[in-house]
């Protein structure tokens, strides 16, 4: 341009153009400025995005194209010893409605739903007509297939606004069987029993899945991460569902017939210490915990009730005495009509003149005086040591929360008067499991097996490991002492010399002991003239398979351990023996002498 010779016309033209467009330098600078401004805006935005809060934006970006689905963990089942479910989880759903869509046809839809789901017409109608809401529960914990079917049917019938959401169902197929042990679930949390005590084990961990979505659809080969759900573990109990059911029915009949407050029973496998049944009555339906009449019905009374065991305890006292070498089952005792112990007088349950009993007779007739006289041969502290080894005063730790420890008086308050009363089962408190395990010690030849309710091993939420794997054995009394005690206990169910012929099972050798203890009332803390009657025993006596312990609290028909507990024991034991196919051993029953005549020569 510059080379072209300047022409006046052209110069004038260029000047005119220059005046229009300004100088190039100015233009450049202006352009740079604009670019710099735009770039600095970009820069500032970059700093804002990356410098100020990069993670939130990254998350937002990721969320834009991804979908997260929660993968719920399935709650573990609670099973009986044969794998039958006491509690199981079923894939369930809740049926929800959008009242804005359902309001118009609410009455028709409510009728439709009330007919198909187990819901109340009026409540459903109210829910379907909720104002200013887009969400209302119609039914919760419906089996998934049923919920889907109902919603599909509703759509086909022309009703809009229903939907289902995941909502697992916890089912207790056996209803009230073992309900006191299994417990129950609330809406979202475990509320009682094993459900609560082993919640960590049963619940598992929810997982999640996130995957890329485009226009509402999952992108087939898009990015996907899965954190799999860890399902809860099953809890295997040692309970036998059918036996448990039978025991509960027997207990209910016993309690109703005796017009008693409550009743509970324990069935132990003699050798393994496995609890085959741990029943309570009154109980409740685990499918409907609100059906419980009293709050105490929700817990296992066998584990939480403290009571004085009464005469069943004589089994422990006298077998300890034999083990200590202070007596045999033929030791002769002169039983006066009453016995002074400190400032009190001990009586027997029946009034009598001076009796001449052997130790077997003392057990068979359940003589307090005879027991006290014999137990006065113990060295100081010896009886308490034995009772501790029998497991009294310590938790059995079978895996039930709220188990009572029982009360075994401290050596500092253990006087000779206390010992006299403890010898026949008063002035100390136990729970049913402790007592059953203690009597089972005799059945098991003097070796105490710690009872267990869980098969294998499981850890409670408190971190306590329980189960058959952690069961321990400890010799408490010698085999000889246990054998002698068994022969003595056989005399209890003898129709001629014993107090509990109704506990006898024809054809079998049964060893047992009755208990009728005074009860301490909650109001005054003193004996309130009500009783705890019980019966503990095992069979077959010469080869024990099961130990059964039945306790009935406050019977109002005037019955004792023999007449109330005995028949219940016989029924439960008969059922267990026939269910597990235990035939009679066929050996000759015990013929131990229970009395002696003064002047007769001891035949030892």
């Amino acid at each position, binding site marked *: 341009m510059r080379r072209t010779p300047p022409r006046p016309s052209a110069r004038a033209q260029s000047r005119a153009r220059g005046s229009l467009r300004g100088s190039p330098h100015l233009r450049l600078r202006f352009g740079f400025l604009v670019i710099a401004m735009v770039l600095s805006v970009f820069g500032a935005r970059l700093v804002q995005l990356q410098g100020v809060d990069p993670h939130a934006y990254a998350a937002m970006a990721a969320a834009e194209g991804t979908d997260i689905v929660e993968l719920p963990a399935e709650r573990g089942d609670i099973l009986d010893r044969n794998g039958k479910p006491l509690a199981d989880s079923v894939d369930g759903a809740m049926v929800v409605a959008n009242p804005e869509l359902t309001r118009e046809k609410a009455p028709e839809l409510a009728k439709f739903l009330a007919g198909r789901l187990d819901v109340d017409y009026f409540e459903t109608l109210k829910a379907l007509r909720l104002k200013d809401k887009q969400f209302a529960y119609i039914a919760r914990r419906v089996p998934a297939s049923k919920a889907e079917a109902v919603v599909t049917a509703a759509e086909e019938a022309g009703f809009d606004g229903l939907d289902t959401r995941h909502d697992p169902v916890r089912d207790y*197929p056996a209803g009230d069987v073992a309900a006191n042990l299994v417990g129950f679930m609330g809406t979202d949390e475990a509320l009682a029993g094993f459900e609560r005590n082993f919640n960590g084990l049963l619940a598992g961990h929810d997982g999640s899945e996130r995957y890329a979505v485009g226009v509402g659809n*999952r992108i087939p080969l898009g990015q996907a991460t899965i954190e799999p759900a860890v399902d809860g573990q099953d809890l295997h109990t040692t309970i036998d569902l059918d036996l448990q059911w039978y025991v509960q*029915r027997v207990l209910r009949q016993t309690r109703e017939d005796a017009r008693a407050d409550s009743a509970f029973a324990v069935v132990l496998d003699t050798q393994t210490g496995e609890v085959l049944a741990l029943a309570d009555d009154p109980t409740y339906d685990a499918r409907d915990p609100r059906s419980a009449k009293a709050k105490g019905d929700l817990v296992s009374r066998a584990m939480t009730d403290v009571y004085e065991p009464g005469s069943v305890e004589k089994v422990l006292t006298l077998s300890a005495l034999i083990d200590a070498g202070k007596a045999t089952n033929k030791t002769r005792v002169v039983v006066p009509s009453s016995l002074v112990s400190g400032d009190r007088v001990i009586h027997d349950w029946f009034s009598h003149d001076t009796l001449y009993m052997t130790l077997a007779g003392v057990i068979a007739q359940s003589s307090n005086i005879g027991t006290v006289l014999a137990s006065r041969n113990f060295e100081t502290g010896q009886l308490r040591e034995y009772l501790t080894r029998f497991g009294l005063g310590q938790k059995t730790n079978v895996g039930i929360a709220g188990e009572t420890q029982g009360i075994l008086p401290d050596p500092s308050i253990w006087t000779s008067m206390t010992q006299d009363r403890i010898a026949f089962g008063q002035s100390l408190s136990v729970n049913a499991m402790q007592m059953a395990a203690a009597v089972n010690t005799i059945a098991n030849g003097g070796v105490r097996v710690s009872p267990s309710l869980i098969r294998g091993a499981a850890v409670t939420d408190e971190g306590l490991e329980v189960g058959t794997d952690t069961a321990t054995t400890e010799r408490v009394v010698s085999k000889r002492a246990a054998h002698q005690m068994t022969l003595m206990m056989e005399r209890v169910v003898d129709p001629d010399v014993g107090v509990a012929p109704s506990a006898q099972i024809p054809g079998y050798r049964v060893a047992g002991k009755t208990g009728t203890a005074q009860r301490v009332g909650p109001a005054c803390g003193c004996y309130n003239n009500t009783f705890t009657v019980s019966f503990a025993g095992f069979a077959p006596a010469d080869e024990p398979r099961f130990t059964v312990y039945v306790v009935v609290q406050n019977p109002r028909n005037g019955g004792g351990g023999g007449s109330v507990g005995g028949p219940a024991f016989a029924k439960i034991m008969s059922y267990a023996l026939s269910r597990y196919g235990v035939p009679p051993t066929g050996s000759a029953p015990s013929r131990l002498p229970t009395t002696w005549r003064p002047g007769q020569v001891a035949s030892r």
Partner: protein
Amino acid sequence: MSSPAFQIRSGRIRAAGAPGRVSGLAGAALHRARLTVVPRTRTRTSHLPFVTLVSFVLLSGVVGLLMFNTSMQQAAFTATTMEQQAATLNAREQTLRMELDALRDPQRVALKAQRMGMVIPATPAFLRLTDGEVLGTPAAATRENSLRLLPRAPQKPAVLDPAPNVVTVIGEPADPGAGDAQRHRGRDRNKQQQEPRSDGNR
């Protein structure tokens, strides 16, 4: 490279057979024998096959990709449907299992059995198959030792639970003439006795 050789060769030929030195016949022969450069025949191959091939490859690639994509989508749909079906079947199985558990609930089974007249035996007894010996003391299971499966109904107040109206009938010597009337009266009395009892339900 071929062109200089060609030049040399043609030069030599030219040198050997200079025009004018040979006869006419020979000249003709020579002329016939003289090699001339034939213009190379350039066969112009058609572009069509190549274009067809390329477009076929392209097209098939696109179509293949499309089909692959479609089949992937289809597979994804199938997978989703089948997953749903699996979930539904799983839920159905669980529901059925729940129903099964409800059906074999010992209480339900026992109630049914008792309604059919069955009784849980009071004393266990065994029959040994090898020698046919009976172990234990067998005893008949009677209605008396049946187990009460349902809780006892709550006691009704006295107003709702009156004592049964018992009418003692003293037997009269049979009179052949009044036999019919007697029987009729007896039946009425029976009805009277039964009614309060069925109300009582104890």
